[in-house]
């Protein structure tokens, strides 16, 4: 019997190595696998390259640093690939100090490069960014009269995913805007680890409504962590 559920955070995080490329989805707090990020902090892997859109807001005096920002603060991140680095955020400060390297790219290009890895497309052309700094050092070719940049797939060793519901085959559904990067990173990593709010029996998800088929999922941890926090 296939059973992708793991019973502990330690089991979920088992084997993540120093130097790994880790994908972290989420848009603000919605769809962010925060419990798994805490697990990764605990697990200890360092020298990480993190593919993440939500690198965090500016520091708020007195507020506890959590999630990805905490991973950065602990010096565990070597490089970040994102569409946003905010001045005054923990990540922004680390980039400014030179302790983290940032590759900042358009958000749609980020999403498409992750999907490309999952879909077996090593590279593609896009007009996005063609006339800008993000095209520097990249190949340019014209299609239909528009300059296009050649962009490569982004593969990961590990993807952390937040689902609303999961079954023992690893079939997933997401809630509301919590879908965002979750189905994409699940496809693009060697090892896909899921935290899920709810668990259901096999067959309770109608076949048409499965959003991420279990083939993309390796481990599932049941963690009913509650709703995303309000944005400040």
């Amino acid at each position, binding site marked *: 019997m296939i059973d992708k559920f793991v019973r502990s955070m330690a089991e979920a995080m088992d084997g993540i190595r120093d130097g790994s490329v880790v994908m972290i989805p989420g848009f603000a707090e919605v769809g962010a696998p925060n419990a798994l990020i805490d697990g990764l902090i605990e697990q200890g892997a360092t020298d990480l390259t993190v593919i993440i859109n939500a690198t965090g807001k500016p520091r708020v005096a007195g507020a506890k640093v959590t999630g990805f920002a905490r991973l950065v603060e602990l010096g565990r991140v070597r490089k970040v690939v994102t569409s946003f680095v905010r001045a005054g955020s923990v990540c922004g400060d680390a980039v400014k100090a030179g302790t983290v390297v940032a590759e900042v790219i358009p958000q749609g290009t980020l999403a498409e490069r992750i999907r490309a890895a999952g879909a077996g497309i090593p590279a593609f052309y896009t007009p996005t960014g063609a006339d800008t700094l993000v095209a520097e050092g990249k190949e340019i070719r014209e299609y239909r009269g528009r300059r296009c940049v050649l962009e490569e797939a982004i593969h990961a060793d590990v993807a952390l995913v937040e689902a609303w519901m999961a079954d023992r085959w690893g079939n997933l559904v997401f809630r509301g805007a919590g879908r965002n990067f979750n189905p994409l990173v699940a496809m693009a990593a060697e090892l896909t680890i899921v935290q899920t709010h709810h668990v259901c029996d096999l067959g309770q998800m109608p076949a048409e409504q499965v959003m991420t088929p279990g083939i993309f999922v390796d481990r599932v941890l049941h963690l009913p962590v509650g709703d995303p*926090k309000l*944005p400040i």
Partner: protein
Amino acid sequence: MSTTTEQAWKPLSRDGMAARAARDIPEGWYVNLGIGVPTLIGNHIPAEREVILHSENGVLGMGPAPEKHKENPWLINASSQRISLRVGASLVHHADSFAIVRGGHLDLCVLGGFQVAENGDLANWSHSPKEVARQIGGAMDLAVGAKRVWVVMEHVTKDGQPRLLRRCTYPLTAGACVTRVYTNMAVLDVTPAGFKVAEIIPGMSFSELQARTEAELLR
């Protein structure tokens, strides 16, 4: 210009610019509203006019801001604000959401701007190639992908420097993409010949507008 002339006009407020742009969005358009003043446009589209608002994080059919006790913690927009869904809305993942943007399916995106050049070049994400904080987000995708790109911004900077230029001095978001600009002083179309003034706020003359604009304006 005399003091009395100066007092003859009053630039539009942020809400005033948003309301002005909202007037020009017809029913049936699929529209993405960028962060800042463009987001305010949503408040000025009457509910009975069916304009379908897209948000980069996978939402098509955003409704108005929810009432305090009716907030759904799973629904936010690209500005991380709580939103509601319109009846008829749909939710997709990030690659599908940007397929909507990049595939040319949006009738319009409205973006904020630092600078717009007379050929339609847009700079709205960085003040210098050396800047550490880089906030591209979805702006480059939207500027390249939407059928029309409107920019809403103050006509001049806080220091009085013009934003409508012959050529942008800040790093570009995309080249030759802007089709129309709404400022707190005027509405301007980007034409092959340059900025063409479609409307000036009451009491302001063409030459007063030109005095606040680096690019040469067409009537």
